[in-house]
């Protein structure tokens, strides 16, 4: 796996080896600003995911990179070449859509060879290349079928083979797995990842599924309301979310309202919690204290960063149980805690039970207060 240094998101930097470089890219649809001055660098051979909820601008960004929808302002450089105003056909990419967009009246082989025929290659060469690609996506014997005769997963493999047929420098995947059922989705996820590693083709995938992004991408670009919230490896984005939005969108996070007391102390009602850091926050400032459910531990006995709470609900989610915890009192705090199945089995928690929850200082992250935000 190629090792790419993690790049800070907002600082526009043009490394000599940058494959795709986006500067100040904006796109408006009438009064609506879909993209607000996006800066992004992508290295050669990288697998990058654009992650965000629908309407966040991720697909708009992908289509701008492809040249399918022209940006309002900003530049796009591909291999050091300014392609900002180049038509799609001059940009060297292959694309796969959620809808597959296979040509229904052409056979699988004709679909895969669609871009090759136009290159005026000899018939034999085309046939060989089509065969090779179909083998690559695991459909060696489906060449003469029509798309309607294939399953969704098979169709998407054909679409992938078609996109790769002309050996593009950049592979764009627009929610390629969203139309498939869960099991096929999982399998295809691995196959695409393996294929991408094998071919080393720079790949950008748009998705709204954080799990998909976490499991496939080398770097994730989290987007919200037309801006990039964070760029980082899956580990970074998950463990050190820069914003409350990222924290909550990538994995779950519960937020508790608090007030900064010192550099390492936050007050919640009449409790005080120690935190690792409060970067940039002033004493007395209202904040939101974020905590992932799996970081909460149920312990015995009081102590630092421990809150007395009561289990109000238990939700079985396969390998773990998600407990909703509430504190008693006038302003109750609510917290989610993920309990591994074996812990559940050992302790046999039931709703209504009083417990002691430990909130490890290293897992607590301080975000600006969300009230009014």
């Amino acid at each position, binding site marked *: 796996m190629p090792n790419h240094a993690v790049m800070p998101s907002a600082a526009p930097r043009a490394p000599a080896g940058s494959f795709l470089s986006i500067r100040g890219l904006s796109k408006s649809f009438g009064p609506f600003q879909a993209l607000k001055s996006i800066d992004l660098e992508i290295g050669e051979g990288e697998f990058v995911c654009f992650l965000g909820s629908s309407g966040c601008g991720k697909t708009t960004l992908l289509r701008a990179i*492809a040249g399918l929808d022209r940006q309002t302002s900003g530049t796009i450089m591909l291999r050091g070449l300014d392609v900002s105003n180049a038509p799609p056909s001059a940009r060297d990419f292959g694309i796969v859509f959620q809808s597959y*967009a296979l040509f*229904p009246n052409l056979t699988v082989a004709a679909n895969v060879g669609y871009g090759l025929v136009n290159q005026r290659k000899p018939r034999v060469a085309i046939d060989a290349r089509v065969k090779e690609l179909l083998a690559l996506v695991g459909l060696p014997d489906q060449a003469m079928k029509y798309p309607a005769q294939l399953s969704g997963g098979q169709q998407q493999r054909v679409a992938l083979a078609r*996109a790769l047929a002309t050996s593009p420098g950049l592979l764009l995947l627009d929610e390629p797995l969203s139309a498939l059922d869960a099991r096929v989705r999982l399998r295809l996820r691995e196959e695409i990842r393996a294929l991408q590693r094998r071919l080393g083709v720079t790949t950008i995938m748009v998705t709204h599924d954080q799990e998909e992004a976490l499991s496939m991408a080398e770097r994730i670009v989290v987007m919200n309301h037309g801006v990039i919230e964070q760029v980082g490896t899956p580990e970074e984005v998950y463990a050190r979310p820069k914003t409350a939005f990222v924290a909550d969108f990538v994995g779950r996070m519960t937020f508790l309202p608090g007030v900064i007391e010192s550099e390492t102390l936050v007050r919640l009602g009449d409790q005080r919690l120690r935190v690792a850091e409060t970067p940039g926050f002033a004493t007395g400032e209202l904040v939101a204290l974020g905590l992932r459910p799996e970081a909460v531990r149920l312990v015995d006995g009081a102590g630092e960063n421990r809150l007395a709470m009561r289990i109000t609900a238990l939700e079985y989610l396969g390998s773990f149980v998600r407990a909703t915890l509430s504190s008693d009192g006038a302003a109750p705090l609510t917290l989610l805690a993920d309990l591994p199945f074996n812990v559940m089995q050992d302790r046999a928690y039931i709703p209504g039970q009083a417990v002691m929850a430990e909130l490890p200082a290293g897992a607590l992250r301080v975000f600006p207060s969300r009230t009014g935000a």
Partner: protein
Amino acid sequence: MSVEAAPRHRDREALVATALLLGLALVLVLLIAVPLWSLLSKSVQNSNGQFVGLANFSRYIATPSLVASLWNSIWVSSLVALIVVPLAFLYAYALTRSRMPGRGLFMAVAMTPLFAPSLLSAISLIYIFGNQGFLKSWLFGASIYGPVGIVIAEAVYCFPHALLILVTALRLADGRLYEVAEALGTAKSRVFFTVTLPGARYGLVSAVFVVFTLVITDFGIPKVIGGQFNVLATDAYKQIVGQQNFEMGAVVGLILLMPAILAFAVDRQVQKRQVALLSARAVPYEPKANAKRDLALLAFCLVIGGVLIGMLGMAIWASFIRYWPYNLSLTLNNYDFANFDPQGWGAYLTSLQMAALTAIFGTALVFMGAYLVEKTRPQPLLRGFVHFLAMLPMAVPGLVLGLGYVFFVNAKWNPLGIFYGTLVVLVANTVAHFYTVAHITAVTQLKQIDSEFESVSASLKVPFWVTFRRVTLPISLPAVTDIAVYLFVNALTTVSAVIFLYGPSTKLASIAIVHMDEMGAVAAAAAMATCIVFTAMAVKLLHLALDRLVFARFQAWRKR
């Protein structure tokens, strides 16, 4: 770091698309906009061509009959829509949502008015309900000459148009909604009002406006059967044909455009919201057997279908009668057209030529035009303009369009004048006259095709015209043949626009029918109309057969 721009010469596609769009816009401007302008601009001129502002309008508004005409036009059009749309809805419901036997046959029967010149239903009505009609008593003393006749004849004429729209709307239903409703134990009537009706409401709105526009712009039926019941369309006829007052004719034509354009604008607004409603994963609805429902619907369809067949049958019978109503013996003489018209069967052959050329060139223009509007990216303003032009002819009465062609094509400065009186002008005019519905059909078809095909092609460096030829066109073949048949059939039956345009050797059968009817040779007129009906039906049957036998081979990909 030095920045190199990517080579720009590869944006050939955008250039080609722009060039084609410009060409299309030019063609439509010549076909639709300039001819219309040529006539409508006369509304602000006097008979010497001097600009007189709104003088003609104030003169027309001062006429006492205007308010009456306007009001008559509006209420008759509304009434016809109110009668036709519910009937067509129920008929469409029977065709799409029941397992009633003979659905294909009933569909074919319902299409017959589309295949007949509008004069045919007027002849039938007079023979049935006229003063010598054998069912005259059914009108309870009312006269067929007047609003009653107009409403009945227009209802028959509009029925297939409304039906086509509503069948499409009901066919698009999502079967899953019905399964949910059934699972919840919803009463049948409630399912109808909460699922069926809302699902088809855009089709209903569209059908209402199409019927309204068709009725308000048609002058053929009110002219023949309307008596002196004044509507806007006959007002235009009076000014243009009765008094040769083109300026006032243009005023009426312009006033006539208003309700039609208004109806059209409302329709577009409503249609805009439709898009989001249809999900790609909808499951086709399969009606379940229900003997009681199917029997009731069958009875209803038998009545409606019987009326339509009766109208046609009456005209066919009329075409064999020696002298209605005094000598009802049968004869074939009425088909010897040389006795009634110097062109004899020649007019029929000219009609066939004209219809074939209209179908070929019209379909090519309409479909490629719709593709450019719908599937290319450059020049959004130009595409919007082209779309507007394409939607315009629907609201234009044929008389206005036809006269506009005379003023435009025959103008001294116009080099296109060499085509005046030839089939070229007849074909161009007919394509323009029926452009809108053909365009809507093409756009609807293209909207159903994944919009990402062009994106994929661009990524594969395949220009859009290759994708058009290899993918879009083959997929759309059924819609393309639909358009061709639509244009062919209408070219066979059109009268109002071409009556000013035919030349010495290009007289059409539809015009010969009008002439024969005028000279009292009603039976011969009915005979020629019968020939046209059967030709149109034969073409439609050929179309179906082709669909089944030939296209099926190219459409193997549709099978699962």
